[in-house]
């Protein structure tokens, strides 16, 4: 268990930068997710921490030790791969024992530690099996046990759950959280799945184009996005373009053709172009006019039912279309296309950020 520190880390392939000047500190025992779309450099960062990719610049420290130039086998890390990467020619027991054997362990304490790691992932009775005799979820748990058994100083996860089906993924997510809480190992978790990142992490680091967009606790990432990219990537946002109206102090955004939206705060100069983000789930529907920071009238253009939620496409008088998500058990869950409807949005749920960094 140690602190993991990245300082001004860069990675270029030829002249193409993949990771640009990333500095990141993960405190001892902390669970941090690197979240971003594919190609944002998150996996490259993880592989640099593991020693599988050499950084072009910068330094990486685990605890007090500079590991920038150490090979992977000298770093005392545990890495869980998306592909599981179990040793197919070894039994589950031998897979988990691999790291311990490398540390020169043997004897009674040694098998006890292997069994302990297997018990942690609830596979105590599977030691004699071969990986191919296990299901995907079981293989992933073996991979975790294998990474944990040598008691690494830092645990790394490379999209470990994305090869599993949805139901299993939810179970494994809970398992993983329990495991990390029990072991309190410093953990770096790479994922493109925002719900995974938000529910598991102490802090989330959102990345885009090789740059850290925001590094903050999950609540801040969700409720107070720092950049237009974060606002567009997290949740299911509607994006509108507008300009800051008046002097900007009252948070009014002119979205064109008579549509004005109020945000709680505007991080841009008066008259400058901004992107306005309103999450689908932050819009309340009402059949009668009500007072709100933003009360907009519109008509339902489309309805689609997806189980727990109903999604509407609502057209505003100026032609703008907004997608609204509402609980399927709540009011206004059964509106026919063409119905008149009122949209109510609190100013705190409207993010107005300088127009830049389109979501990919």
């Amino acid at each position, binding site marked *: 268990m140690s602190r993991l520190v990245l300082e001004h880390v860069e990675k270029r392939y030829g002249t193409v930068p993949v990771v640009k000047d990333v500095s990141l500190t993960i405190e001892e025992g902390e669970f941090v997710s690197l979240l971003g779309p594919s190609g944002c450099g998150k996996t490259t960062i993880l592989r640099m921490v593991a020693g*599988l990719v050499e950084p072009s610049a910068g330094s990486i420290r685990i605890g007090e030790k500079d590991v920038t130039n150490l*090979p*992977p086998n000298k770093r005392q890390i*545990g890495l869980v791969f998306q592909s599981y990467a179990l040793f197919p020619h070894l039994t589950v027991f031998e897979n988990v024992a691999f*790291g311990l054997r490398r540390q020169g362990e043997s004897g009674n304490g040694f098998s006890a530690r292997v069994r302990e790691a297997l018990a942690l992932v609830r596979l105590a009775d599977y030691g004699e099996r071969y990986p191919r005799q296990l299901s995907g979820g079981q293989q992933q748990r073996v991979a975790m046990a294998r990474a944990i058994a040598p008691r690494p100083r830092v645990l790394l996860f490379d999209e470990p759950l994305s090869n599993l089906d949805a139901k299993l993924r939810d179970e494994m997510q809970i398992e993983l959280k329990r495991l990390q809480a029990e072991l309190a190992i410093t953990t770096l978790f790479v994922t493109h799945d925002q719900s995974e990142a938000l529910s598991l992490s102490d802090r989330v680091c959102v990345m885009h184009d090789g740059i850290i967009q925001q590094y903050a606790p999950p609540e801040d990432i969700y409720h107070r996005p720092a950049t237009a990219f974060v606002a567009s990537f997290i949740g299911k946002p509607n994006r509108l373009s507008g300009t800051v109206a008046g002097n900007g102090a009252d948070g009014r955004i002119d979205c064109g053709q008579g549509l004005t939206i109020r945000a709680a705060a505007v991080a841009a100069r008066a008259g400058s172009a901004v992107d306005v983000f309103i999450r689908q789930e932050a819009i309340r529907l009402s059949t009668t006019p009500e007072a709100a920071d933003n009360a907009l009238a519109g008509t339902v253009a489309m309805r689609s039912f997806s189980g727990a939620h109903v999604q509407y496409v609502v057209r505003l008088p100026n032609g703008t279309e907004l997608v609204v998500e509402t609980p399927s058990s709540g009011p206004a869950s059964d509106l026919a296309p063409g119905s008149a409807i009122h949209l109510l949005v609190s100013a705190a749920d409207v993010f107005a950020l300088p127009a830049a960094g389109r979501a990919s």
Partner: protein
Amino acid sequence: MNSARTGLLLIAPLAIVLVGAFLVSVLLLAPTSFREYLPGTGIVPDSWTLENYLRIATDDFYREVVWRTLALGLGVTAACLMLGYPVAYLIVRGDPRWRLPLTLLVIFPLMLNLVVRSFGWIALLTNRGLVNNLLMSLGIIDEPLKLMFNLTGVMIGMVHIYLPFMVLMLVAALQNVPRDVEAAAATLGSGRMHVFTAVTLPLTAPGIIAGSILVFVLSISALVTPRMLGGPTYQVMATLIYDEYMQLLDWSSGSALSFTLVAIAVAIIWLSNRAAKRWAGLA
């Protein structure tokens, strides 16, 4: 049920060709191997004897040829493996730009006729050949090295000829080793050498075995290269069978030798397959 029938249909064309053209004619030879042969007279009809097989097991000359053939097969296989693995590794793990040129270089010798390649080696290896002349001109040796009509010459020629098969099998095997599995071993504390011996090597075992069986079977049954580089006196089983049939017209001994060769090949393939499965944890 259905899959069994589909399987049967899939192998049917090849099976018909093999049974018709190969198995039947080979089985027709089986009785011949138990017939008596009288020099000058020929095969004695309706005779029955185990003499032809007993001679292979007891006669010193025959025994030497059998052992030599096996030793040659094992030697060629081992040499191809040692020389081929690094090349295959370079092709798969090296700079991708070199992959195609290297693969072509490996395959290129296969485009030349076997006789031509063996002649090439004669030009290099004879007493007044390129190698000996060069070494003598440089004053490294006084007498020409004996590089032909012995194990050395046949080994050199056969390793050259069967190396491409081994490399191609190993390339296929190495391509099937997931990089993540090797990386996993590295993160668990394995240095580069241990990653190779503990992960890469066992995971390429199927390719090593397949390549070895292929090279072994090809080299114990090779005729042209041993004849050209071994000469008329340095015999292996294949050349001996050829002589028994074509020169001595002793079909009985020739057939017995052929069946012995097949039996040895099958036994070794079976044994190595079992050993490989155990080694790679696939049993």
